[in-house]
């Protein structure tokens, strides 16, 4: 029975993993730049982001084709419709990575990004994105819930970065002119965390943890 449909769903999973993996590449390049390991990989982020956009269109087309031709129901319908929403979040994370990559050259030293805590913040975001994609592929509600919980860590890291930046300005720190750029990076990272948490909520909808997926979906912010 339905060997072809199962193989099409397998293609969807593989494409989602590839899209997630491309996003991780951009995040790892940012991590290197924010934690003093070098900025040489930043230049490639725009290209990877374009590859992410292409994957987004490819997956969307696959999902539409599956909806049209297979008329999925139950778990299949939940998986495909959640995938269609997840690719939006992954694509936005890719765009945020490009935004950050454009700002980093204006930061004079990695000491500043590390002082504000952006290096650990990007680590949290990478964990969240990887966890959300894993949760989708393995149908793992526990992992998805862990990602959602981790969003609080990202939010607290943003609050910390904001405080540090405020202190820099208040105390007339010699690097205070870089404060707005640091704050913008922190904000983009915080948004990435929100998108990763949203990815995890779509996984919970695919699993139908509410038991009434259509009328009572898990709220995605």
């Amino acid at each position, binding site marked *: 029975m339905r060997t072809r449909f199962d193989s099409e769903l397998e293609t969807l999973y593989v494409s989602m993993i590839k899209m997630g993996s491309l996003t991780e590449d951009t995040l790892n390049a940012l991590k290197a730049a924010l934690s003093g390991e070098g900025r040489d990989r930043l230049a490639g982020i725009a290209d990877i982001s374009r590859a992410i956009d292409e994957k987004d269109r490819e997956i969307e087309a696959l999902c539409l084709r599956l909806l049209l031709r297979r008329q999925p129901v*139950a778990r299949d319908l939940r998986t495909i419709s959640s995938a269609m929403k997840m690719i939006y979040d992954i694509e936005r994370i890719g765009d945020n990575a490009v935004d950050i990559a454009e700002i980093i050259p204006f930061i004079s030293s990695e000491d500043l990004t590390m002082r504000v805590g952006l290096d650990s913040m990007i680590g949290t975001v990478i964990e969240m994105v990887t966890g959300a994609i894993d949760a989708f592929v393995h149908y793992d509600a526990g992992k998805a819930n862990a990602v959602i919980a981790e969003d609080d860590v990202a939010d607290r890291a943003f609050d910390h970065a904001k405080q540090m930046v405020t202190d820099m300005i208040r105390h007339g720190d010699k690097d205070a002119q870089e404060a707005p750029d640091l704050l913008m990076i922190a904000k983009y990272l915080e948004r990435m965390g929100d998108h990763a948490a949203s990815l995890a909520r779509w996984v919970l909808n695919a699993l139908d943890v509410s038991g*009434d997926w259509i009328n009572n979906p898990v709220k995605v912010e």
Partner: protein
Amino acid sequence: MTIIETKDLDLWYGSMQALKKINLKMEEKSITALIGPSGCGKSTFLRTLNRMNDLVQGVRIEGEVLYNGENIFSPKVDVNGLRYEVGMVFQKPNPFMMSIYDNIAYGPRTHGIKSKVKLDEIVEKALVDASLFDEVKDRLRKSALGLSGGQQQRLCIARALAVQPKVLLMDEPTSALDPISTAKIEELAMSLCDRYTIIIVTHNMQQALRIAHKTAFFLLGEVIEYDDTEKIFSNPSDPRTEDYVTGRFG
């Protein structure tokens, strides 16, 4: 309100048990779909609801089928009267070899209605209700066999409606029809369900999704799951239902 309820309904064809402890409550003025793989007992169940299985040799039935609270197997029940109230439409359209008008008037005439004015009124109303009147009003005296397959099926529905049933049993009513005729029958079923109770056997999952309020999944003579149609097709409770509706077996 429940119009038909089965309690521990068992049915055997000789030594083969075709229905096992079926407990279902069907709501008045709603559409209930019965789904399941071939040979799972759904058509047998449907035919039991107006005692059509009485005509099959070697059938043995235990348990109860309550129609408006009364057991239809009670000796007090008039079987013909039951079949007027619980009408049936079959997989293949089966119009009588007579005119369109006479097909519809057949039932009321056997009820003793002879007045032409009254019969005209019944025939027109049944054809209007079956969304067929406009297509056949100029050829009511022509043979019903000249109608298309889809029109013949709607004629059969009109014929069933002419005796003013409360329940319509439909056994794969669109499986022999093209998509346009199928859509017309589905529209018709949805427009009728505010006045009639419809119980439909279908192999078409999308059809059950489109028209049924509730869906029962049958497997090997048992009801595995009975719930709101959206629940059955979005998040069924039993993994066997999920496997069937997603096409993993059947």
